[in-house]
């Protein structure tokens, strides 16, 4: 209601200003009044079926009277002073206001406010307090669910029990969902700022900028855990089954980001130099999110498989037995940057440009305690809190109270260009970026793991050496250099050559360095003024040094796995573009790209191959001044192959030489699986603009389509190997059985039509219509329900979701509007 009144008031004010300015303009002649601007107002009605939050993901499409756009600029022809006000969507979630003014050549200031909504999805939350940092469940609910908790011993050899305690728990939870309130996960960014630029003299400038952004709302965040379960007494775990527990939560967002920058520079025609200091303060008003575990009212620990008190080395059964869980949210931080830049003209029509920055980022937010589960204090095995005599719920028990996070960055970018001859242009570039993390390295005696119900003494779980619990502040240095030559062989033909180098050095990571060399060539051929063809090819080879082999403390991942961003890579990349304008009325553009990466060909696992192909067409046709058509089409195709394998420790081939167990840890070749991923996206756009009555009545229509499909075809590559070793053709872990997924499909249709009538020279009225239809087919979202018990491969009785998803919508928006320009 208040927003509506504000909108009306703003419209009235702007209309008054516009009429005043229009009157002045009429009296004094066009532009003489010194005021110019526009006012766009209208009435809008929408109808949305389906996921309206997806339709309004970043916008506020509302019904009723609206001021869409308004601006006014006050400036006399002979004056140096100017003032401009811009307003968009006042009193809406996506409102924008700007005030700019100044004196030409002397100073300029700007004051703005911008609001951006971000609607994620609707959902259902069992918790009270959504949007705050404390999510609660009624005690009686926790008590009731704890009373029907089914222990491992009680469960016996049946993981999916629908008649005992599981059924009771499910019944209670379903009852809760029946009463739960819907909740919309959404954010809002509100940013305000002020900037001032002053020209001290013709060549000397100074500037200052201050912005503050407030981000508020809630987004989904999930806290979960799992427990592996061997089905059947005495069986090898050929079929790993799992219990999962957890909850979708609403992470409260209440961020403030303040930035300040100050600078000054001298800008001459042949050289320039400037200096800037910038400061960023990030503040999160919520350090933690604390939530009640719906399934426990009292704290307890995990147990041994027999239900006894958990001992050192146990995997921990009965996980997730805390009464209150906690999540650390983004910590506060501060950063400073000093930047110096300069450029100077060089002989041979050359120029040197360089910029150097030095900065640091600090973060010293207090750590939360290990856990709120006080029962862990009773664990007494060696290294456990009971043995150490520490209180895990007290942050004072931590070896350090905060990270004392401190990162220093040093970066530089330098370019030298020259044109030594009329036909040759050279460019040499060098960039440097050093990220030095000087944060504390802290060793913890252990941590609360397995659903905050067990005390883990190791950071990961390998077959060799496990890492103790300490953080590793990563650092890296990245350098790139490139030389390009542009040689005009003849008037229509330019030849392009380039060579590049990129080097990374890393610390506290499972890789030491990577080095990449590249070389490329291309041409630009302008056959005529209205036709040009541009094409290029580049080859690049990246090599890796010091990749730490897996299955140990330094790299707990599988032996033979290479992360794709750290892998050896050979890249071929080519692109071409053809532009032809056979007449002033017709323009035709064709473009194509192809890229192929081969990654880590000498290792078994990870992303192995990526191919990207894209081809497009752009046509515009203007047969007369009254009619214009446009068409664009793009097809993108991406194909990739990733290789993986299901982990095993009991289902092995045995002693054959093909047994790679010793080479690849627990990854038996029989359990390998590969996935071929194919993603195709077609994008089509057509448009027509027709002046039905010349300069009076205009129809502007467009249609856009985006249609993408992603296929995930998974297969087991080693069938023949299994058979050769006496196994049945399908012998493998259940976890490794190839399961291709249904095609993931995205479809968006958008139709827009706008019929405008230019009533007077400065007054246009019109009607507009928008139709959007969106549909997502993604099993991971379409198969979701708030409560998945009985529907999942795992036993998910103790996992409560929010179903924070969207899948389809159909939206119609009609508008009647008036645009008054003055």
């Amino acid at each position, binding site marked *: 209601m208040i927003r509506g009144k504000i909108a009306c008031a703003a419209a009235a004010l702007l209309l008054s200003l516009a009429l005043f300015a229009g009157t002045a303009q009429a009296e004094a002649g066009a532009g003489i009044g010194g005021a110019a601007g526009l006012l766009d107002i209208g009435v809008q009605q929408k109808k949305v079926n389906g996921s309206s939050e997806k339709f309004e993901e*970043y*916008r506020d499409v509302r019904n009723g009277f609206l001021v869409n756009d308004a601006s006014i600029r006050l400036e006399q*022809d002979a004056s140096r002073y100017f003032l401009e006000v811009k307003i968009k969507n006042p009193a809406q979630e996506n409102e924008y206001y700007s005030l700019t003014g100044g004196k*030409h*050549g002397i100073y300029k200031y700007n004051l703005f406010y*911008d609001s951006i909504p*971000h609607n994620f999805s609707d959902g259902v939350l069992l918790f009270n307090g959504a949007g705050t940092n404390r999510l609660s469940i009624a005690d009686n609910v926790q008590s009731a669910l704890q009373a029907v908790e089914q222990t491992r011993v009680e469960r016996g050899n049946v993981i999916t029990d629908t008649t005992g305690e599981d059924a009771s728990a499910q019944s209670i939870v379903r009852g809760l969902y029946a009463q739960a309130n819907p909740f919309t996960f959404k954010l809002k960014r509100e940013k305000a700022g002020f900037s001032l630029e002053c020209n001290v003299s*013709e*060549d000397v*400038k100074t500037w200052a900028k201050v912005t503050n952004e407030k981000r508020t709302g809630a987004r989904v965040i*999930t*806290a*979960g855990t799992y427990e592996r379960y061997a089905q059947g007494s005495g069986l090898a775990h050929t079929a790993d089954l799992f219990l*999962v527990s*957890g909850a979708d939560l609403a992470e409260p967002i209440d961020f403030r980001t303040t930035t300040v920058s100050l600078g000054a520079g001298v800008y*001459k*025609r042949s050289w320039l130099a400037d200096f800037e200091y910038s400061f960023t303060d990030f503040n999160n008003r919520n350090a933690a999110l604390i939530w009640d575990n719906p399934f426990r009212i009292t704290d307890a620990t995990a147990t041994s498989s027999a239900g006894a008190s958990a001992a050192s080395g146990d995997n921990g059964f009965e996980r997730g037995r805390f009464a209150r869980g906690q*999540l*650390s949210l*983004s*910590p506060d*931080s501060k*950063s400073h940057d000093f930047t110096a830049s300069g450029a100077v*003209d060089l002989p041979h029509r050359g120029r040197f440009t360089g910029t150097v920055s030095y900065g640091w*980022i*600090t973060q010293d937010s207090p*750590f*939360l305690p290990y*856990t709120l589960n006080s029962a862990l204090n009773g664990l007494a095995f060696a290294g456990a809190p009971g043995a150490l005599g520490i209180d895990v719920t007290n942050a004072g028990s*931590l070896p350090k109270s905060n990270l004392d996070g401190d990162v220093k960055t040093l970066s530089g970018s330098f*370019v030298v260009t020259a044109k030594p001859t009329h036909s040759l242009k050279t460019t040499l570039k060098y960039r440097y970026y050093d990220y030095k993390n000087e*944060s504390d390295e802290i060793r913890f005696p252990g941590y609360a793991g397995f659903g*905050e119900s067990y005390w883990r003494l190791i950071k*990961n*779980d390998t077959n060799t050496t496990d890492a103790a619990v300490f953080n590793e502040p*990563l650092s890296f240095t990245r350098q790139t250099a490139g030389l390009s030559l*542009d040689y005009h062989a003849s008037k229509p033909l330019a030849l*392009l050559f380039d060579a590049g180098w990129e080097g990374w050095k890393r610390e506290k990571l499972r890789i030491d360095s990577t080095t990449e060399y590249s070389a490329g060539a291309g041409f630009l051929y302008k056959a005529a003024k209205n036709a040009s063809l541009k094409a290029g090819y580049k080859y690049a080879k990246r090599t890796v040094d010091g990749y730490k082999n897996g299955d140990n403390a330094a790299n707990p*991942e*599988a032996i033979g796995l290479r992360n794709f*961003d750290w892998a050896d890579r050979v890249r071929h990349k080519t692109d071409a573009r053809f532009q032809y304008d056979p007449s002033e009325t017709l323009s035709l553009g064709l*473009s194509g790209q192809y890229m192929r990466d081969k990654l880590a060909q000498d290792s078994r696992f990870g992303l192995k191959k990526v191919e990207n192909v*894209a081809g*497009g067409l*752009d046509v515009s046709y203007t047969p007369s001044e009254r009619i214009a058509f446009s068409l664009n089409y*793009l097809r993108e195709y991406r194909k*990739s192959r990733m290789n*993986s394998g299901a982990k095993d420790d009991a289902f092995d081939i045995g002693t054959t030489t093909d047994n790679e167990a010793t080479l690849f840890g627990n990854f038996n070749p029989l359990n390998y699986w590969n*996935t071929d991923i194919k*993603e195709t*996206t077609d994008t089509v756009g057509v448009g027509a603009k027709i002046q039905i009555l010349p300069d009076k009545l205009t129809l502007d229509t467009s249609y*856009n389509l*985006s249609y993408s499909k*992603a296929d995930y075809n998974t297969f087991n590559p080693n069938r023949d190997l299994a058979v050769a070793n006496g196994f049945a053709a399908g012998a493998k872990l259940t976890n490794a059985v190839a399961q291709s997924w249904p095609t993931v499909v995205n479809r968006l249709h958008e139709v827009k039509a706008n019929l405008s009538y230019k009533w007077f020279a400065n007054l246009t009225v019109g009607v507009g219509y928008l139709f959007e239809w969106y549909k997502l087919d*993604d*099993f*991971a979202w379409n*198969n979701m329900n708030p409560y998945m018990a009985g529907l999942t*491969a795992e036993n998910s009785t103790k*996992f409560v979701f929010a179903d924070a998803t969207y899948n389809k919508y159909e939206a119609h928006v009609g508008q009647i509007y008036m645009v008054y320009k003055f």
Partner: protein
Amino acid sequence: MNETAIPKRFLRVAALACSLILAAAWIALAADGAYVGSDKCKECHEGIVGSFRANIHAKAAYYGAKNAGCESCHGPAGAHVESGDKSKIVNPAKNSAEIASAACLACHAKGKGQMFWKGSAHDSQEAGCAACHKVHGNKAKLLAKPDEKEVCFACHSEVRASMLKRSKHPMRDSSSPTGEGKMSCSACHNPHGARSEKLIAAKSINDKCYECHAEKKAPVLWEHSPVKEDCMTCHSAHGSSFDKMLTQKVPRLCQSCHMQGRHQTGTLSTNSVYALGRSCLNCHPMIHGSNNPSGPVLQR
């Protein structure tokens, strides 16, 4: 002081004069005759000259370009006025990109925003000033099209396609009240050249991301290395067919780099909690790093 030394003032004046001579040389080569003044141009080109009144170039004199007018860019129009012949006057838009841009840079090379222009991607691809700007226009930033994105999409069609995908930044369609256009290409890129790759106007790609996603900038206790090395390892900034602008669907994206436990190395059926919803993030929500002492596997 060495009396034989050339005075610095003389050197500066000489350098400036040389620059001006170079910048104007192409004009002299393409057109000759006398300067006639903008009023003369208005006699035939009233619409264009009139539109200049609301154009920032009408105020060029306040920014150091004394006596700026039509002939500042078009060269002396005397011969053209006498003959009416179009070929007797320079039309920068129809010249080569380098020559056309030289006219603009005669004044705009002084700007901080253009300091990395020479040798930049657009410069080397011969996409000069006139490829994107219409000097006679009155659109914002004198762009050739009403909307900045439309200018960029003319060549970068794959980015236009990304705006229609499942997840993207708030950039789509700023031409109407029902649009999302809260960001433009220049929110991240400087088309006139930048210190970073891909014309990113920041120290690095990540530093550009942190400008809006400041909560991911700070060092934390337990890091996820791509968050500090390169956001593009997992995200596609222009848009994606997957949620959160991810380059690939989870869990396959995560599985391409992580193989440890049994639960994460399965092929995973369509009704597995490890594949449904937020997939791996159902249990590892702190994917951008955790500052919790009990968060070494990014669980809390």
